[in-house]
């Protein structure tokens, strides 16, 4: 009886440890993805990190309830996306005094990187381009927007995006086509960077 109880306790501890290890592996694998998804909505590093962190905490609480662990990334992406949208809405309601997101605001780290490569004129142009691009992306319907963002992160192809969104590849292809079309229309005036 005692041996049986010990064996049961041991198996529970082992299961717990395995769960922890698996979550750690998923965390290392998907943290950047979650951050970028959140950043695509919020476009502020601190906010995006906060939201991604919250999403991971939430994922951790429900990780043992996730039947198919291979769907973790898709689950995390959708959760992060929704949480980021919620944060964006509440932020917009709360602070009308802050700099509106998308008015040419570029992440300081990106700006520093650009600054190292470009001269002042190019830097201004790059900032302007990024601002307009974000504005155009923001005007897209939510479904198209998510497809564009996911396709633009970590070089995801159609199959990967369809797996992340749990929709058929054909649907992803169609949405991506629509999204690109609308973006090109909105940015048609913009620079194609064909100097000289």
């Amino acid at each position: 009886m005692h041996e049986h109880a010990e064996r049961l306790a041991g198996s529970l501890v082992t299961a717990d440890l395995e769960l922890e290890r698996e979550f750690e592996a998923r965390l290392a694998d998907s943290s950047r993805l979650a951050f970028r998804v959140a950043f695509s909505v919020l476009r502020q590093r601190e906010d995006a990190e906060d939201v991604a962190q919250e999403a991971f905490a939430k994922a951790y609480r429900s990780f043992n309830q996730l039947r198919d662990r291979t769907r973790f990334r898709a689950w995390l992406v959708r959760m992060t996306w929704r949480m980021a949208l919620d944060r964006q809405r509440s932020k917009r309601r709360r602070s009308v005094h802050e700099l509106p997101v998308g008015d040419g605001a570029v992440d300081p780290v990106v700006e520093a990187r650009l600054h190292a490569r470009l001269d002042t004129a190019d830097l201004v142009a790059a900032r302007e381009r990024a601002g307009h691009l974000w504005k155009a992306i923001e005007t897209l319907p939510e479904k198209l927007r998510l497809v564009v963002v996911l396709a633009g992160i970590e070089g995801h192809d159609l199959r990967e995006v369809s797996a992340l969104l749990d929709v058929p590849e054909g649907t992803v292809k169609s949405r991506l086509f629509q999204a690109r079309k609308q973006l090109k229309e909105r940015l048609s005036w913009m620079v194609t960077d064909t100097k000289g």
Partner: protein
Amino acid sequence: MDGHRHEGMSDETLEREIEAALGIDPSPEFLPRIRARIASERVNEVWLWRGLWQWAGAGVAVAGVAIIGLWILNGPASGSRDVRVANAPQRPGPASDSGMVADAANSGSSPTPAPVRRPAAYTTRVPRDRMATPPEVVISRDEAVALRQLIAAIAARQVEAVDIPKLEGESAPIAPIEEIVLEPIELSPMAGLEGE
């Protein structure tokens, strides 16, 4: 704008622009922060379980105290509550004196035996819920113990029933009280006080 030509944007250019806009990495503190958060979630989980166990323990303790209290109130002979009081040895009392017990079969005046009517208190079972109610009569602890022992003894039929007339017959006759003769009290006048 900025010396660049405004022309249609190709898919590749757009993709490049989007990837550049989304190619942002989280800060180096991002992963450690998530790990710390997950660790705090674990601690919270442990505390939650500990709290649940504490509440459950407190609940069990309260229930135990309540059960013991009820048991003490009802007395240790509560198991024999269902014993009919009518089984107790009959005693001469107001029931037979007032004619409520009419044993027609013994009298032989009627061919059909008349139903024996007993006072309700002698024939009905005492419901358990009434047993749980606190006693209306306040008696001392010693008396309560003695009463319980008596009831238990009656239930176990350990009390020897003896007729009162027999007792009266066996007891010695009370000696007549002699007349008390009081001698008359004589009152003598008081001697005069000195100086009067």
